[in-house]
Structures are given as C-alpha cells and as structure tokens.
C-alpha cells in the first residue's frame, strides 16, 4: 500500500513541472512585452508632458509681457509660490538688463515635463519729451551754452532758473546722444550728459556736467514721424503786412511764406502740416494756445530767416508741438545754393516741443528754448540755452508705453528643478495645488524702487516714487512714465 502511494506521487510531479515550465515561459514573455509597452508609453507621456510644460512656459512669457505692458515688473509668482494654470504651474522672473530692457524667464511644469523660455523686451515711448534733450547723432554746445531742466507743472511763463545747479533739486536734465557730446568753454549741463555706447563727452575749458557722463549701454531709438493726412490746401503766401490767423480744421499746406511785417497766427486747437514754412526777414509767427495746443508738421523745409521772429504770448511749453520730418541738404528754392532742412535764425524765445530726428538743428547764439527738443544733430550757439520742462513728460495724449520683443529663446531649466524630473510638479516644489494663485493674481511686486507717472480713472495725472510693493497698480488707468530700480537692502 505504501509503495503504491509513492508511484502516484512521482507521476503527479511530472505534469506539474511541465505545466510550470509552460506557465513560466508564457509569463516571462508577457512581462517582457508589458515592460516594453510600458517603456514606450512612458516615452509618449513624457513627450506630451514636455509639450504641455513648453506651452505653460509660453503662457508665462505672454502673461509676463502683458504685465510689463501694463507697467508691472513682469515677474509672476516664484519658485516657492508659482502661478497655477490648468493642471500645471509656471513662474516668471524679470530682470532689468539695462534701462528699459527687461529679461523675462518663464519656467513651466506639467506632469514630468519641464521647460524654461527666455524673452527680452524693450520698453519704448513715442513721447518726445521722454527722450529728454536729444541729438541722436551728435550734440554740440557752444561757449557758455546751457542745458538744464525745470518742472513747470503745466503753469505757463518764463521760470526763474538758478544760476548754479541745485543738487537738492529732483529735476535734472537728461542730455543724450547716440554719438559724442561736445561742450564748449564754460558750457553747462545741469544733469546727466549721456553719449552713445561708443561715444564720449568732450569738455571745453571750465565746461561742467553736474551729473553723470557715462555712456549709454544701448542707443536711444527715435520714433518715425507720422504726418497726419489732412485736406490739401495749396500754397499760402502772406506778405501784405497784416495778421492772418490759421484756426479750426487743420489743412495740409504746400509752402507757407510769411513776408516782412506780416504775422501768421497759429491758433489752437489746431493740427496742420506744411511742405515748407518760410518766414522772411521781418516776418513773424505767433502761436496762440489760449484755447488749445497747436500741432505743426513741416515735411520738407523749415526756413526761419534772419530777422524773423517767434512769438508765444502764453509762454506755454504745451502750446506747440512741432514735428519736422525734413531731411537732406539740397537746393530747395532753386537759387543754386544747397539748403539744409532746418534753417533757424529766428529771434524770440521758443516754447514747446520740437522734434526733428533727421535734421541738424542749430540754435543761434543767445537763443532760448523752453520745453523739449530732439534733433539729428543738436547744436547750440554761444550762450544759447535749452531749458527742458520735465512736466512735458507723458503729456502727449497719443503716446503710451510700448513694449517690443528683442529676443526669444529656449534656455536650460534651472538646476534645482532638473533634479526632480520624475515627480509631479506640485510635489517637487512642495506646494499645494489648491493654494496657488492664478497668473493674474500672482503678479510679483518685488522690492523695486519705482518712479511712475500715471493717469487715474478720472483722468488726473499723478506721480509716485517709492517701493513697488507699496504702490497700488489698480490706481493707474494709464502709465505714462516708469522707471524701475532694484531696491537695495538697507
């Protein structure tokens, strides 16, 4: 009986072994196939996650750019408190690389995907006064010439300016060029004289610049003049010794000629253009800004001959904005002599903004200009003066801060992020998904020192200077001027 049992055991074992071999073979094969399939799936998922992370980083850059356009720093969230977006997250860091040049770096994380993108932006303004006093190619100041600044606060009249630079004054001129700045003997600049990146400031005997003379890191861009399209009106010759008033609907004139003892009154509000404005000896141009400002475009020739005269009864720097798009020296009156696009021999104190980015503007000796001026080459004769009115900054209703893209590129993800590639982003950063803010609420107001001029909802203009974190951006309907410096720890 005992032996029979032994035989039965041996026979059952044989079948078991064969079955086990078969099961193990099939099982092993299945595991291999499953492993391969899982690997392939992982690669596909990783590819999708990387694309999602890339899109999140792009969204971060778009949000950052919008933030810059609306006057913010461009920073959104941070690595420790990123912005939640969909089922992923992102944060954007902003760095002021140079004045008005902002570098944004956006890191997006989704699933196992990570991506970091970089965008460099440049803030520009079409506001002429934002340029300060500019000679885009060159600035030359004659002996005893003077460039300074004051703040009229919108009030008309000739200000009483100090003889010496007041270091406690918050108003200083910014005299700029993309080339050299040359000061004649005893010339004075009450503020910074900033030559171009490869330019320099050359000082004559006893010449003085109260501020910095360091060259700019980038060139100052000048905006192209957009001449308005107005109804054509032919030539205007006014030589009968009377006063003639131009007012009402603006026109596009051919050549305007003002003869001896004749006065042409430009009465605001008025927008007009002319091919050439020629004021002869004894002729007079008067700007009447009692009811509104005058905007004058001269497209080919501004010829203010010796003995001609400017007159500004209101003495208001906001009263006239003159744009001269003329360029190139050639014979403009067919007398066999080449004529520069601007010939300025007029007497009288000029009040207003003068913008001639492609022309040489040579102000005669002893002349004075209150307001703002930008020219291709700016030359001041001996004892001539330019008094920059800081109140003009941001006063141009048509000019807004503009932001242009300079460079976009893919950069390496931060090292500390690269360590946890396999983890869920919220786990990797140790943040709670439901506690994170959406992008629009995650704008970072880092400790920047800002100087901002803005218009509030009622249209009133305000200035603020201080920590950005203390400034309520909701107050600003329109940002007209913005300077941002990194806050130094005390």
């Amino acid at each position, binding site marked *: 009986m005992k*032996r*029979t049992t032994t*035989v039965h055991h*041996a026979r059952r074992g044989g079948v078991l072994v*064969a079955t086990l071999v*078969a099961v193990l*073979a*099939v099982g092993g*094969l299945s595991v291999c*196939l499953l492993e*391969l399939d899982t690997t*392939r799936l992982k*690669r*596909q998922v990783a*590819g999708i996650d990387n*694309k999602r992370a890339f899109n999140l980083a792009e969204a971060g850059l778009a949000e950052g750019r919008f933030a810059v356009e609306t006057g913010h720093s461009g920073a959104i969230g941070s690595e420790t408190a990123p912005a939640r977006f969909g089922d992923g997250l992102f944060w954007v860091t902003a760095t002021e*690389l*140079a004045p008005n*040049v902002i*570098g944004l770096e956006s890191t997006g994380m989704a699933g196992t995907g990570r991506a970091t993108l*970089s965008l*460099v932006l440049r803030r520009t303004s079409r506001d002429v006064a934002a340029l300060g006093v500019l000679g885009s190619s060159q600035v030359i100041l004659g002996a005893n010439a003077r460039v300074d600044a004051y703040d009229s606060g919108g009030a008309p009249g000739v200000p009483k300016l100090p003889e010496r630079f007041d270091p406690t004054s918050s108003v200083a001129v910014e005299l700029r060029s993309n080339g050299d700045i040359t000061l004649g003997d005893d010339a004075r600049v009450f503020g910074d004289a900033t030559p171009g*990146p490869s330019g320099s400031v050359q000082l004559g005997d006893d010449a003085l610049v109260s501020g910095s003379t360091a060259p*700019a*890191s*980038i*060139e100052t861009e000048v905006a192209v003049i957009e001449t308005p399209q107005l109804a054509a009106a032919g030539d205007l010759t006014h030589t009968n010794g009377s006063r003639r008033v131009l007012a009402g609907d603006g026109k596009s004139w051919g050549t305007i000629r003002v003869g001896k003892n004749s006065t042409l009154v430009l009465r605001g509000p008025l927008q007009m253009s002319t091919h050439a404005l020629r004021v002869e000896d004894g002729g007079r141009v008067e700007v009447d800004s009692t009811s509104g400002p005058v905007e004058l475009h001269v497209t080919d020739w501004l010829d203010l001959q010796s003995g001609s005269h400017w007159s500004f009864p209101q003495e208001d720097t906001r009263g006239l904005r003159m744009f001269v798009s003329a360029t190139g020296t050639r014979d403009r009156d067919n007398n066999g002599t080449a004529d520069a696009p601007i010939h300025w021999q007029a007497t009288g104190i000029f009040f207003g903004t003068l913008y001639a980015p492609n022309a040489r503007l040579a102000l005669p000796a002893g002349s004075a200009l209150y307001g703002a001026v930008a020219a291709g080459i700016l030359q001041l004769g001996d004892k001539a003066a330019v008094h920059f009115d800081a109140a003009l900054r941001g006063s141009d209703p048509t000019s807004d801060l503009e932001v242009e*893209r*300079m*460079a*976009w*590129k*893919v950069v390496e993800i931060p090292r500390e992020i690269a360590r946890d590639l396999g983890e869920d982003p919220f786990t990797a950063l140790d943040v709670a998904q439901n506690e994170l803010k959406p992008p629009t609420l995650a704008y970072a107001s880092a400790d920047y020192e800002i100087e901002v001029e803005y218009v509030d909802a009622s249209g009133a203009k305000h200035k603020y200077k201080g920590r950005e974190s203390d400034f309520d951006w909701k107050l600003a309907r329109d940002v007209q001027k913005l300077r941002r410096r990194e806050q130094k720890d005390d």
Partner: protein
Amino acid sequence: MRRALRSARAGFTLLETLIALTVVGLVLGNIVMVTRSTSDAYDEEMSKASLELQLDQTLDRIALALMSASAASLQPGAANPAFHSTLSYAQNLGVQAGEVVHGAPERISLRIEGGEVVWVERPGEPGERMATWTRSVREFLEGELQNGVDDNGNGLVDESGLAFVIESGVVRVLLTLERNGRGGSSLTYTRESVVHCRNS
C-alpha cells in the same frame, strides 16, 4: 516476485506516452503559434509607434530650432506656394549690451540619397558641424508623385519628403517617413507643423 511485478507496472505504457507527447506537442505548438503571432503584431505596432515617435521628435526638433531663429535670417525666403527642402537660418542668442546677438548660420536639409534630415552648423565654413536628425525620409511627400501635379491636394506640386513653406516669418514644415515593417509591409507616416519664428 510480487514486488518486482508491481514496480514494472508503475511506468507509462507506450500508449500513455504517445498520448502525452501528442498533447504536449499540441499545447507547445499552440503556444508557439500564439506567441509568434502576438510577437509579429507587437513588432508591427512597435514599428509604427517607433516611426511615429521618430517623426514627432524630428518635427519637434525642427520646430524648436525655427522658433528661436530670426525670421529675417530665413533663407530662402520665397513665399507660398514655393517649397524648399533646405532652410538656412540664424538663431537669436539673446541680448548683450543692448544689442541682439545672432548665432552661427545653421541649415536643415533633406539628403535624398540617404533619406536623411541633416542639420549643419556653419555650412561650408571652418568648424562646420553636422548631425543627422532622422532617417527613412521619403523622396516625395506621402501621396505625391513626380508628375507636375498636386497629387495629395496640399497646394504643393511634387514636394519632397521634407518641405518648408515660408510666409512672413511663419514656416510650414511637412515631413514623411517611410519604413518597411517586420512583415514586409510598408509603413508611411506624415506630419505637418506650422512654426512661428519668435524673433523678427
């Protein structure tokens, strides 16, 4: 004597052995057949997936390169409907001292002989670098024949397996990969991507 007879009877009879062998053979045969067909199907799917992945990765690589490129640097810059199988460009490396810095010239092209997408940095210059981004590129895009007609209805005539269509800083990239599957069948996949150059 009784013990010896019992031991002899404990073995398998010939019939039992034959039946067992037949059953085992049938089982093993089935296993082999199932395994082989599964394996073939798996290989086929893997080939397809691999080709698709290769196609996606190549297009992503091209797209990423063109995104960082300066739109003004694209050469040739001819507009739609012309297409090109070679595209030269320069990457925007960022801003230094207020100026935009561009990288060395780069080129992505189709090498028809090897069916390869080739990337070259500094083409024809000292320090030239080259890499093959993918193989198995078809001579003509899927559905296209060399007959002067737009066979596949995509607006392009006789376009190559890698085709760039450039229009105002936007590049349309079309790519077809073709490979023989394990079973001898031909696998063909085509993808199209529209890339906006982020730099002007």
